[in-house]
């Protein structure tokens, strides 16, 4: 390891935020201003909620806000939810993530669950309608504003996601080759996050174990399924480029605090998330399974860590 470029915790978080920007840009290109509003709302909420909590806990506010971890959580949540969800969705979700995902456990470093995904799961369970209505077309600043703040709904420009859509069609008895479509927006957003992830890998901010194992687990499971019956299950490259796959692989599953910390443990952790994502996508009741897969695996982290302690120097067995 070369350490001329040692980063501190704030800088690491900041780099992650920067790396997210490519995926966000792709999202903006296809769906317009919604995501920008969501991110701004999320950041403001996280700062306010965090300041309140820190002052209750009598902790220094400025240094904690500037470690950027709360802001990162907020942005991750904002890019995970539909970009046209009403404003209170992101405000509620971010508050939930910061309070119950982070501060309840004692703040950064102590949270067993990925805070952004905890917020996401909370929103999905409580407000399934708002959480599954996505934009279909580019929306300009005015339209996005109306959708988010004035709760106007335009049926023509919103609908279910590709994943959801396919799932419904499959359950109606259609075959994969009849309904197989790709969506440019999905592919490019995923490529955006993939590139950001590669940047993080190069900067050695994340390690390759989790993303690699995640993508491997996801591809293998979907490959096996499509080998069993290619009429019923979508091919693996569909799963790789749809939904929040790359975001999950490089930005969500890699949250250091709540993931496994040993090298082998990280491989197991990432792989299991990948498998779970497909299981939830294919057999579960929710269109995308990353949040639940990550939360489920968070629970197993202490166990994984315990049994994957690396072999120490000089230890033959």
């Amino acid at each position, binding site marked *: 390891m070369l350490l001329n470029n040692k980063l501190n*915790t704030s800088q690491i978080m900041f780099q992650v935020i920067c790396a997210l920007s490519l995926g966000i840009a792709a999202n903006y290109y296809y769906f317009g201003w919604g995501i920008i509003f969501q991110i701004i709302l999320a950041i403001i909420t996280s700062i306010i909620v965090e300041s309140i909590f820190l002052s209750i806990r009598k902790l220094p506010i400025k240094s904690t806000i500037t470690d950027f971890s709360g802001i990162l959580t907020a942005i991750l949540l904002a890019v995970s939810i539909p970009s046209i969800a009403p404003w209170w969705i992101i405000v509620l979700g971010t508050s939930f993530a910061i309070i119950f995902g982070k501060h309840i456990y004692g703040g950064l470093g102590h949270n067993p669950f990925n805070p952004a995904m905890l917020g996401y799961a909370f929103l999905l369970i409580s407000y399934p309608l708002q959480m599954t209505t996505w934009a279909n077309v580019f929306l300009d600043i005015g339209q996005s504003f109306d959708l988010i703040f004035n709760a106007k709904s335009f049926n023509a420009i919103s609908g279910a996601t590709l994943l959801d859509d396919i799932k419904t069609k499959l359950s109606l008895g259609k075959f994969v080759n009849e309904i197989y479509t790709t969506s440019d927006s999905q592919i490019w957003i995923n490529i955006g996050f993939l590139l950001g992830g590669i940047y993080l890998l190069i900067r050695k901010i994340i390690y390759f174990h989790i993303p690699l194992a995640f993508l491997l687990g996801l591809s293998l499971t979907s490959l096996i399924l499509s080998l069993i019956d290619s009429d019923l299950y979508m091919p693996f490259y569909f799963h790789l480029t749809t939904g929040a796959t790359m975001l999950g692989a490089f930005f969500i599953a890699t949250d250091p605090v709540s993931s496994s910390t040993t090298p082998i443990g990280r491989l197991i952790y990432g792989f299991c998330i990948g498998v779970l994502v497909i299981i939830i996508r294919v057999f579960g009741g929710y269109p995308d399974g990353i949040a639940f897969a990550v939360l489920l695996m968070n629970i197993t982290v202490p166990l994984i860590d315990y049994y994957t302690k690396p072999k120490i120097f*000089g230890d033959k067995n």
Partner: protein
Amino acid sequence: MLDKKYTKGIVVPNNYKTISTNIIKAPLPNKIVLSLQQQYTNNQAIPCVKIGEKVLTGQIIATPQDSIGTPVHSSISGTVTAINNQVIPHKSGLKIKSITIESDGKDNWIEKSNYVDNFLNKDKLELINCIKNAAIVGLGGAGFPTHAKLENIKNCKTIIINGSECEPGIMCDDALMQNYAKEILGGIEILLHITGAKNVIIAIEDDKKKSFEILSKYNNNDVVKIKKIPTKYTSGSEKILIKHLLGTEIQSGKFPVNFGILCQNIATTKAIFDAITIKKPLISRIITVTGSSIDNPTNYEVRIGSSFSHIINLSKPNTDNYDVRMGGMMMGIDIKDTKIAICKTTNCIFVNKAKQKPIAKECIRCGQCNQSCPINLLPQQLYWYAKSENIDKAINYKLLDCIECNCCTYVCPSDIELVDYFTFAKSLYRKQTKEQKQADIARERFEYREYRLERNKLERAEMLAKKRKELKQKMINDKEQKDKILSAMNRVKTKNAVK
């Protein structure tokens, strides 16, 4: 080049100016303080001089109590002025019984013996005894008495001569190799004769090309091989060096001697040569003085027992506000009081511009630390358990195998002083198990930490109180000001009203 690659450890950027490898003889100190603590034994050497007695350079002033200990020699000539407890340069800040000698400025030696070059005809035990009487200890860092190492080793197959400084900035071994190559190789011959080993490997970092060349030039013994090792931090530490060179991993609790391997530092080898050939006891050593406050880093030959300030002043730091650290920036220890004396294992003094340590943040489990740990521990888990004083769990995560190399602290993005926690947890463990060996030091360390924490708390409280007072004063002042204005306005008003 290497038989087995070992990829852990870290590359520490070398920000220190490269310095000339000349060795400058430091002027005699006015006063020396020699600690009587015997490394690796609980016994102290017993003084054999009295206060007021005149001593000569090289004279024995204390004798060991047991077979592992070594005598203590005066490193200057002068008068014994005190025999009392003095602070030693150690993490614990312990006080140890020491002898203080004021110099007479003459440097009169005990009778020097003639040059002996027929050492190969001598008996091994006699040679070992010579080494013991010259009080030679490992000069690389640990300070283990050399004669004890030599007595213990059986079936020695390989001798490893460690010529790596392993931390950037330190240049004393490099200087030694360039200036005393013949002596070093001579010392190796002596070691070969004593141990009967079949192999000698001199390990030199791959950035020290000149030393490599010079040693290769003078080396005409086929048994002696000179190998390069990567310039990477902790590749110079004993067990990792062995892994590098021989591929052997030595388990925790085992020592190289158990494997027929003898490790010696390059400076020790030269000291052995001097001890055997001219009967010169170990009374001086080479020390690098460097750091961000030193414009011209230099290698000095310094008498053991000189004070830190004596040596630092020779190099004229470019600021008055500096921090002093003994040993490397990684493994070394901070020296608060520069009036204390250097010891045989002081290989380097860093004089750095005083800097505030960054405030530690929470651990984010990023895993940088376990990537860098040469022992393959999980510092983040150890930290977690050490912090919550869950010592059993920490032991389960192999706390005791930590070599306190500081790699993890160095890479931690949250600036957590991980090693401090580990040292603390270890001492807690020792306290719990009442391990008698080193129990005293452990306790002292613990108490010292407690004391430090307490002191920090007090300092912080004081600072806060001061701030609060200032604030109050300011508020009062402001209020007075306001009141004055208000009353003035009122007066004007009433005046106007009266009019």
